[in-house]
């Protein structure tokens, strides 16, 4: 099963090089603008990892990272910044705002591939924990019983909030 990667960059030639290198190992979706990427995330599309440039015209890479980290459904996925701005202050800002890795342009696409594999190796384990938390039990049609809110029980069985 190929992992699904979202690539966000406004330069089609850079995207082209990435696709050429990554398409054997990953399923790829491309967003040509930050806004388009935001649309995909709002609509609930799921990705295993995201590669984004920071400098995007309408919806920046940092805003995108914030959106990914905000949602409980995507908070765990690795975000790689691949940017032409590469001074250390920018790198630090990105990492502080929730990015997992920073690669600067010009880049070696093989390094991007290796980085993705490394991050996904790491991301595999905590993700399952979240899955367990929001436990996956198909009970279609069953109605939730809200009428007995019991904090103690939920803390005992569900662990604490992570955000």
């Amino acid at each position, binding site marked *: 099963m190929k992992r699904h990667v979202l690539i966000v960059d406004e330069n089609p030639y850079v995207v082209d090089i990435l696709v050429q290198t990554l398409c054997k190992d990953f399923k790829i979706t491309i967003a040509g603008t930050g806004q388009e990427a935001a649309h995909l995330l709002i609509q609930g599309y799921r990705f295993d990892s995201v590669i984004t440039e920071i400098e995007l015209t309408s919806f920046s890479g940092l805003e995108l990272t914030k959106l990914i980290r905000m*949602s409980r459904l995507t908070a765990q996925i690795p975000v790689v910044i691949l940017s032409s701005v590469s001074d*250390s202050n920018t790198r630090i800002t990105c990492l502080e705002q929730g990015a997992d890795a920073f690669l600067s342009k010009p880049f070696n696409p093989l390094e991007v591939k290796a980085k993705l594999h490394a991050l996904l190796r790491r991301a595999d384990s905590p993700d399952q924990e979240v899955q367990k938390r929001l436990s*996956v039990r198909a009970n279609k049609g069953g109605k939730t019983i809200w009428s007995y809110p019991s904090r103690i029980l939920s803390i005992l069985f569900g662990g604490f909030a992570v955000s």
Partner: protein
Amino acid sequence: MATLYVLLVIENDLIANRVAGLIGMNYLIIRFRELKEAEEWLTDRQEVDLIISDGVTGYSLADLIRSKRDYRLVPLLVLSRFGEALVEPISTSTGVTDILIINEDNQRLLAKISYYLTLSKQIHSIESAGLLAPVQSFTLPFWKRLLDISVALLVIILLAPLLLVISLLIIIDSRGPAIYKSKRAGANFHVFDMYKFRTMEAEADQLLNQLASYNIYDTEVPVETTEMKFLCDACRLKGLPCQLVLFDKNQPICEKLYLEESKGTAKFMKFRNDPRVTRLGTFLRNSSIDELPQLFNILLGDMSLVGNRPLPLYEAEKLTSDEFARRFSGPAGLTGLWQVKKRGKGEGQMSDRDRTLLDIEYSTTFSFKTDIQIIWKTMFNLWQKENV
């Protein structure tokens, strides 16, 4: 400020009131108990900026709104609580934007809700860029491939005896194989083995780093000593100590200066009178015979007759910047614009920047006519004026 509309589809009154209380008075809240009612309300073009719904109804609602153009981009939050089952597996694409954990404290819930409301507004206010052209990987046009195969086959058949003789000579002249394989990046950064006649001693690659000082592409950068004035102009004018210190092996350096310097260093390595080249190799290079095995690459489809030089990986990875990445959207070739523009005339050096810009020019403008012209000029330029 335009009014923002929030739709709640929540059965339980207590929870609905709590959520409504959180959202506050600045927004228009519409609440339904049942999915059906909400569906009816959503049929005509309603304004809605955020939808919050029960876990059970959330997923059916998701399918509904994601299928309608008007509501496709509305964030949908589904209520849940820790320890309780969600209706559908998390892993599938459901159309749900986020989960709202109802037993978190109010501040967290509020932060989340207001974030999505601002996001919704922001997304709506941005002019839609329209559909983007899908990424087009470069493929050789039919006429080019046809020309490549026919010319390459013809030349290989004509020169077969010569190729065999050269191979034998190389094996006799110095230890090692006749053909040298180097990893190159061609069109779309497709990496392949490029074949050449071996013109250097075996194991030549390891010597490369020792030779960097001979590089003809290197622009003169004054070498900073260890007591370098490690202050960029900006800091010096303000009378401040360095604001961006990087730590090198044995000394601190200013990041600004470091970045400027690394821009100045050459992207390509080429040497005059490279000491690693064998005597026979010098002749092969001058006559361009060393390039002949690339005809096999052309047959295989890795390269074309005319195009941008496929670059060694350490050079190629320096050209994947926003400015130059376009270079890889053209075909890789045996000869190209760069070879006929300057090199043939024996004019001085061409900077690697100009060379890359020529590559980009070719990628965007190539046609049957230009290809034929370049092949024609190449014939005249084969014997190179420069010893490179």
